[in-house]
């Protein structure tokens, strides 16, 4: 089952504009991660925000986390055509029986940046 839900499902913007994607989740988390996927293949890790953090920046990326609302947002500023991809949030939930941390992904937001 999938824990996170991204919103919107698809987003189309002009190059240079900002893109905002949202993610909601259901259970308590240790951290939340954002990944990018091109052409339905391998995922690239973008940023990790811990449950005790509220905001984090990495280059043109800004992630916020609101644990009271169980939601996160990913902002990409000054978008480029190369940012066209699907973006997924993933929550890192502990499996106490296995002593491990599983990632559970949402369905993703498909971002298209038009040159």
């Amino acid at each position: 089952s999938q824990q996170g839900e991204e919103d919107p499902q698809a987003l189309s913007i002009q190059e240079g504009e900002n893109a905002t994607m949202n993610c909601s989740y259901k259970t308590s988390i240790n951290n939340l991660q954002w990944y990018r996927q091109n052409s339905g293949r391998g995922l690239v890790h973008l940023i990790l925000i811990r449950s005790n953090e509220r905001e984090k920046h990495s280059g043109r990326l800004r992630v916020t986390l609101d644990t009271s609302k169980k939601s996160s947002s990913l902002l990409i500023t000054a978008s480029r055509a190369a940012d066209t991809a699907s973006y997924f949030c993933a929550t890192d939930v502990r499996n106490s029986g296995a002593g491990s941390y599983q990632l559970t992904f949402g369905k993703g937001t498909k971002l298209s940046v038009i040159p």
Partner: protein
Amino acid sequence: GAGVSQTPSNKVTEKGKYVELRCDPISGHTALYWYRQSLGQGPEFLIYFQGTGAADDSGLPNDRFFAVRPEGSVSTLKIQRTERGDSAVYLCASSLRGTSRYNEQFFGPGTRLTVL
């Protein structure tokens, strides 16, 4: 250093056949994960290895699916009696340690399995 590699990149098989998908994790990573991604969906967890042992196989959909990691490095996902519903991209990921609450997983390019 090489990233996670997966072979084959594409596999087409007929219903009822047996397939094996291979994953080479990043050298030194003790944790290895398999995920399955259906069209339009996010990846779904299948199984997690810590070293040679399957520490968590709760995501395997049924007993037709099995995975091994005999020497704690390369892993093989095995699917018996394939069904059309098994068609998906199978992703492998590795991380330095699976028990860290802040572990970053590095993904391979995936194997696209098509069952005719």
